[in-house]
């Protein structure tokens, strides 16, 4: 196995690409009692149009299939459900679907290998019938309604609607009651056979393991699958403009909530460059409206912000945007303030002291992510799905200079790419 070491945080990563194309990553944590395994396929809600490698058939799928498939993977031919089996072993098992991947996982202190048997069995053996697919529609229907009542989710989806015209990131991960009604076992099998091929999958293990030994245990449990060529995913053309600058909706909330976004249309090819850019954006967001910023102090003292907004940069090859979201009785004022600070920094440059201080803070944030097996494993999986090695954030950290960060500020924080989504009080 290839070993990558981060001397700064004293962690090692063992990585191996198997003959069948699957990537296995092991991060040993000898001091911890908890063990965590996560197995992901590079198939998320944005992958709704593709060409099946074997048949060459072009497939369009209804919204919400990746998530529906995630629910149905647990079902077994003998009527049992693998989630029940895993939990009966005392394991904390779960699964989730994001825009760009689906993941199956469990955490435990005991019974790891029994859990591994079950996990690797159910992910490799789908069982979909008309009956079990129908039944799931009721459950997922309630999940969709739960999100419908969640103001922050509506705000997020509207922010995506503001930023993108056709990009599938606009699609709700769970789909809609209407779209999931069209899902059949046939659609699920097509997606399964395409995306759950080992060459499209990554497994991450974190905990008290000997890397070579756990790798053998994983290999032993892999079912041989036919090799397939590359999956051609078809996405709409990259958009260079936003869809609309503002969108609002009324809901039963006590104080309005807002998401201010900057669509980032400057794609970068080099993965290390993406990491550097990500670090610079995190520094910038903190300098603009983070806890110690002047803007935050003013807005807090005026009662326009109750706590620091959440700061996010979401990206994949298909989309990239900044999101600053929070709660305020006066979202317009927050947007104006951000614009004002961005303009000021563009004109006058960043203050040296402030920049260095925030850089130190960001370093601490990265180190803290190595506290829990679950966080580590999920981070390595999500980053690897984007072709990034998580250690790069620690390694590239020092190369991010003030000049470079000012450059990123000019390229990404553009007024014409700014949007705002607001959920107002009824």
């Amino acid at each position, binding site marked *: 196995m290839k070993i990558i070491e981060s001397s700064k945080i004293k962690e090692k990563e063992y990585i191996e690409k198997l003959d069948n194309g699957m990537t296995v990553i092991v991060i040993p944590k000898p001091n911890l009692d908890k063990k965590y395994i996560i197995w992901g396929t590079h198939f998320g809600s944005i992958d709704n149009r593709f060409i099946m490698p074997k048949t060459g058939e072009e497939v369009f799928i209804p919204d919400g299939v990746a998530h529906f498939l995630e629910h149905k993977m647990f079902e077994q031919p003998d009527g049992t459900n693998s989630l029940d089996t895993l939990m009966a072993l005392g394991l904390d098992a779960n699964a989730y679907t994001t825009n760009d991947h689906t993941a199956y996982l469990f955490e435990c202190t005991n019974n790891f290998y029994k859990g591994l048997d079950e996990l690797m069995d159910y992910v490799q053996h789908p069982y979909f019938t008309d009956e079990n697919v129908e039944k799931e529609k009721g*459950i997922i229907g309630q999940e969709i*309604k739960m999100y419908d009542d969640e103001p922050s989710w509506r705000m997020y989806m509207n922010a995506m609607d503001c930023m993108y015209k056709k990009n599938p990131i606009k699609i709700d991960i769970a789909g809609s009651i209407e779209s999931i009604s069209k899902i059949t076992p046939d659609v699920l099998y097509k997606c399964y056979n395409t995306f759950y091929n080992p060459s499209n999958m990554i497994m991450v293990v974190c905990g008290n393991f000997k890397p070579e030994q756990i790798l053998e245990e994983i290999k032993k449990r892999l079912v041989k699958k036919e090799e397939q060529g590359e999956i051609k995913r078809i996405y709409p053309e990259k958009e260079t403009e936003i869809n609309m600058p503002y969108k609002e909706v009324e*809901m039963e909330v006590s104080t309005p909530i807002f998401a201010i976004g900057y669509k980032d249309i400057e794609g970068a090819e080099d993965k290390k460059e993406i990491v550097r850019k990500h670090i610079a954006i995190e520094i910038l967001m903190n300098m603009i409206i983070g806890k110690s910023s002047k803007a935050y102090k003013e807005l807090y003292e005026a009662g326009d912000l109750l706590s620091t907004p959440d700061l996010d940069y979401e990206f994949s090859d298909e989309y990239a945007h900044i999101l600053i979201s929070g*709660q305020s009785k006066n979202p317009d004022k927050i947007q104006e303030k951000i614009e004002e600070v961005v303009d000021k920094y563009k004109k006058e440059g960043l203050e040296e002291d402030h920049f260095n201080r925030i850089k130190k803070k960001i370093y*601490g944030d990265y180190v*803290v992510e190595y506290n829990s097996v679950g966080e580590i494993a999920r981070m390595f999986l999500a980053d690897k799905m984007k072709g990034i090695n998580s250690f790069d954030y620690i390694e590239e950290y020092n190369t991010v200079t003030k000049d470079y960060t000012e450059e990123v500020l000019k390229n990404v924080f553009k007024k014409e790419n700014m949007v705002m989504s607001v959920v107002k009080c009824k």
Partner: protein
Amino acid sequence: MSYKKKEIKQGINIHNITTNKFKTNLYAIFLTTPLNRENVTKNALISAVLRRGSQELQSQDKISKKLEEMYGAVFDCGIEKTGDNHVLKFYLEAISEEFLPEKEELAKKCLEILTGIIFNPLIENNGFKEEYIESEKNNLKQIINSKIDNKRTYSIERCIEEMFKNRPYGLYRYGYIEDLDKITPENLYEYYKKLISECKIDIFVSGTIDEEKAIKLVEENSTIQNLNARKPIFAENKEDELDGKEKIVEEHMQVSQGNLVIGMNVNSKEQEDKYVASIYNAILGGGANSKLFQNVREKESLAYTAVSTYRRQKNAIFIRCGIEIGNFQKALETIKKQLEDIKNGDFTDEDINNSKKLIVESIRGISSEQDTEITYYYGQELSGEFTTLEEYMRKIEKVSKEEVEKLAKEININTIYFLRD
């Protein structure tokens, strides 16, 4: 991992957890005081005002700047209900010195900042700074109003409020808007001084700092040295006598999903029955194998969420489901059927074993999260008896099917709360 406790003065304890599992050291100070209607809003406001500034670091941005310089150390505070106590919690988390890019001594600084914020607040004219009081009153008002924003947590809060009406535990932890007007910088400071001199104080140091060093660190802190010894005033755990009548509370809001919360009380004063109640709760709604998940969700397809949680300190169990509004009766019947089934012994040894594994596993995991570990030891501290994690697991393992069946007969629905359109 090792845990040690030392009383440094009457009513003030240091708890040290030495562990090499984390890249951070976590310092926590908890102030414990009885929950009551008179003080609940004041406590919430105090916690908000203290974080605005101390004598040394007089504003929030000064605190933030200082912490950012220390590689993004994080200060956090919150206010919680633990049994019939109101607990003001203050945390400071900082990277362990061995992971810093340059050598620097952080521990002493961390504790100084934290104790400064709590015990040496910014005082002007014999009161808290007026500007801070005014703006935090407004903020607190918004926080209290924002209770409705998350329908799931709102429904649980409301069910608790109804179930423990006119009792300490029924109070809202952030207090009440109508109480805010009466609070002034001076009378809040008067109350604060009383609180600090009477409350129970627990200081936690978790991380690579060993026992000897941790005790020295705390004992040499001049702010802590200045605190008086006290016979701490706080509420011991005790059960509420709730009447056995079942009441239904319905509330309307603009929602597309109905939120059903059922509050149940466990009528037993036996300490050992708390372990039995944990198992009961796991069988009912603890995980994917539970009766609620299997029947309400998987069989009847009525809900995505169907769970129950056991609040040990109050000996109460809360069931929660998100359902189609028209399915209220059907869901309620399905849930009641599960309760009856457990009473009638209609569950297997396997159910018991699965539940034990689930609980034991979660206990084993406690030491893998720094704040969870602190919360566990704090819970032990308040319960007045000390159960180690090992003993806890042993007691769970010992619970029998007969005990669960017997206790099930003492568990009654008290409040059915339904939030609908």
